[in-house]
């Protein structure tokens, strides 16, 4: 069974702006896929559909066999772990421990079991020692790692990261990459940081003007300069795709 299946997804905002025009994609279990696209391509709109924050105007989203509908929202949100771009939006509780506990506690986990889940999730991102600190006393990179832990604690089927490398210094960026590689969950990484996609994801999708414009091995897509140029994507200065 695929972790994620999106078919013919279309969406227009209430003001009439059409953002998605029929998106089709599927991601199999334990795959790490990058969703690339310029600003305004509809990446965030697509992400909001994956756990039912926005509901499809047309088409379907299926997470591990469960269609995203009003009556399945609770289950779907348990299975899709969304990591937002700004960790200050994601970490809203007074301490790191409370924040990581928020998701599992909403699912009814209590007491020692809750403690075990929280510690496990923080250990996976190397932030166990920050457990009792308030989030605003952590560095930006640490906050992003805790944000990943808040979602891991819910043992999701698929982890969806919105611009995971934004605002990170090179060391924090590498540390996060190591953590993401060490997890054995399906990952969908939304980014326009092409080298990061190459480093972490074998496969990439290009979302452009509300449709999937390309789907293939990251290395091949990034080597195609014309394709990138057509979709307003560019490799950073001096960066070349190393030969296979």
């Amino acid at each position: 069974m695929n972790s994620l299946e999106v078919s013919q997804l279309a969406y227009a905002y209430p003001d009439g702006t059409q953002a998605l025009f029929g998106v089709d994609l599927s991601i199999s279990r334990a795959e790490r896929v990058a969703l690339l696209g310029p600003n305004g391509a509809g990446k965030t709109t697509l992400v909001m559909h994956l756990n039912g924050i926005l509901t499809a105007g047309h088409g379907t989203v299926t997470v591990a066999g469960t269609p995203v509908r009003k009556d399945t929202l609770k289950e779907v949100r348990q299975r899709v772990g969304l990591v937002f771009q700004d960790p200050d939006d994601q970490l809203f509780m007074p301490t790191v421990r409370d924040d990581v506990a928020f998701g599992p506690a909403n699912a009814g986990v209590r007491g020692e079991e809750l403690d075990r889940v929280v510690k496990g999730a923080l250990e996976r991102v190397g932030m166990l020692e920050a457990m009792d600190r308030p989030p605003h006393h952590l560095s930006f990179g640490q906050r992003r790692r805790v944000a990943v832990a808040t979602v891991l604690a819910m043992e999701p089927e698929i982890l969806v990261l919105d611009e995971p490398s934004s605002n990170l210094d090179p060391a924090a960026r590498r540390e996060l990459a190591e953590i993401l590689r060490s997890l054995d969950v399906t990952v969908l990484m939304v980014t326009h940081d092409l080298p990061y996609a190459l480093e972490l994801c074998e496969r990439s999708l290009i979302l452009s003007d509300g449709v999937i414009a390309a789907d293939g091995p990251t290395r091949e897509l990034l080597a195609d300069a014309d394709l990138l140029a057509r979709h307003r994507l560019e490799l950073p200065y001096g960066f070349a795709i190393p030969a296979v």
Partner: protein
Amino acid sequence: MGAGHHHQLYLPGGSVVHRLPPQCKLIAVFAFAVVVVATPRERFWAFAAYAVLLGVVAALARVPATYIVRRMVIEVPFVLFAFLIPVIGLGERVTVLGLSLSVPGLWAAWNILAKATLGVAASILLAATTEPRVILIGAQRLRLPSLLVQIAMFMLRYMDVIMDEMRRMRVARESRGFEARNFRHIPVIARSAGALFIRSYERGERVHLAMLSRGYSGQMPIIHDMSASVPQWGTALALPAVALAVLGLGL
């Protein structure tokens, strides 16, 4: 405006007072304040006894007197008001150091001063021994409206974030040569405040989305089991109980 600005009331420690569950302490302080307010103002010795009681709690909690006194400045506006009453008060008058003062005014001032000082000192002790977020957990346990508790909790969490945003806006204004010097500059500041409000509102929406994504359904989940035992209630309520006994002695 540094980090942890609003935590300066809390004095970390592991004393009996620190370890009491927050709901017990909240009720104890509230009950103590009620007893203090209910005490007739003529009973000087009762107020002295209450002060001694608070001194005992402070000693148990290892909160130094200077720590409390320094934080009492919050009371200054009330003190100033209290000093005004005898001057502008009516009725029988006495002359103190060449000043003609009203006798009922003096009583009223003493009443406000004594009761407010005791109440503020008790609250400072509560804040010095209980972290703000833990006080909110106590409020939640005492069934305060969940919406109010959540609002206070988010205020606590986002105060620094918003202060930081405010500071960045000020830096941005000043780097373009703006400096608030007189009345004509108020519109600029007002517009900044408006922008800050909108940014905070938008952040609120994003936080709400993040909460929904993790299964929020209107109620904060119970993460800490902070139930209080009978001995803990007993320990906490000893303060208002003794105060009440002191009040009862005089009847």
